[in-house]
């Protein structure tokens, strides 16, 4: 169970969105005692959770590690591994954490490939959809989970996902 960090001075407030993944990211940062030099590890964890690093997320990391925002941004853009933007207009993050994997995450990825013609880390040629994967988004109870444009969906079936994709990739490749 993620325990609340000690109520130290000037603790950054929890992320207002209430998105559980921020809590998980805090746990990951706590493992590194919020050390500034753990920045790269923390960015890794953030990208695993969210699929890519939004500005909002970088600021959250900067605040918790007490680093200048420009340093965090600089490091995040130095390494090709980190993505600051989903490349397509829509994103579909498929959780491939243990629970979701067991409940059929690869079936979801296969459905995406069938429907949109793209795999993890890829974007459709018309820039409509980027498919990303993440390791456990903290929604194991409703596995398999995907995040569609920032909204978590649980108990997702391949058919339901394929139907969802119809609106996003008009032509499809089907």
């Amino acid at each position, binding site marked *: 169970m993620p325990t609340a960090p000690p109520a130290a001075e000037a603790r950054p407030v929890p992320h207002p969105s209430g998105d559980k993944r921020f809590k998980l990211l805090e746990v990951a940062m706590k493992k590194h005692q919020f050390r500034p030099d753990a920045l790269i590890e923390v960015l890794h964890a953030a990208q695993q959770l969210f699929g890519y690093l939004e500005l909002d997320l970088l600021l959250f990391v900067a605040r918790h590690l007490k680093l*200048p*925002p*420009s340093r965090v*941004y*600089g490091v995040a*853009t*130095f390494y090709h591994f980190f993505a600051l933007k989903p490349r397509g207009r829509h994103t579909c993050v498929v959780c491939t954490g243990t629970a979701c994997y067991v409940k059929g995450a690869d079936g979801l990825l296969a459905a995406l490939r069938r429907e949109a013609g793209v795999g993890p880390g890829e974007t459709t040629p018309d820039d409509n959809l980027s498919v990303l994967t993440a390791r456990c988004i903290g929604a194991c109870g409703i596995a398999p989970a995907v995040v569609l444009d920032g909204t978590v969906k649980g108990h997702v079936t391949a058919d339901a996902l394929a139907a969802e994709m119809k609106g996003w990739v008009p032509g499809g490749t089907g």
Partner: protein
Amino acid sequence: MTAVTLTIDGKLVTARADETILQAARANGIPIPTLCHVDGLSAHGGCRLCLVEAGPGGRLQPACVIKVAEGQDVRTDTAKLREYRKLILELLFAEGNHVCAVCVANGNCELQDAAAAAGMDHLTLDYTHPRREVDLSHDRFGVDHNRCILCTRCVRACDELEGAHTWDMSGRGANSKVITDLNQPWGESATCTSCGKCFMACPTGAIFRKGATVAEMDHGRAKLDFLITARGRKQWNV
């Protein structure tokens, strides 16, 4: 601190063992061109204009970061070095969009001065004409990335003197760019104190004071050196 003896351009000099070749040379009136170096800020070693031949086989070393060594034989002005420096300057000109004729820093620019000193009066390379932005969102200063040579002087001045660390370098290679905070408009930066130290540190017209027109801008660099000495050595040279 122990002293070491070395030769620079055939001249026997003594220096403290913790001094760089650049410091030892300058203390002895031997000039070495620099761009990314600012006395009193941390060394960056990025521009390579200060390359000298040092040690066996005339190995190329950046004088601003390499420490002196006993018996070292340093050459600062060989034909090879002159050629390399010219090429480094050409590369800097080709990499950005430096048009002196319309620049606020014309006549007050370290890049221009370095090119003139090296006799680099035209380019043998093709210009890359990159597409870069101009940010005028700050109420006192602007940044024209076309004129930025990525020396990180603004980054170091902001971090080491002002302590705000508003600036940093984003991206890598040809995509490198100095940024404020999360690459947001400078005027929206939450950390910037509007102190102007980045402007004083900038060697080109990349960071400029608003309202200055072509060739009229002075960086006020003397103020920066004053602050560095005051802060570092507790000497107020008014």
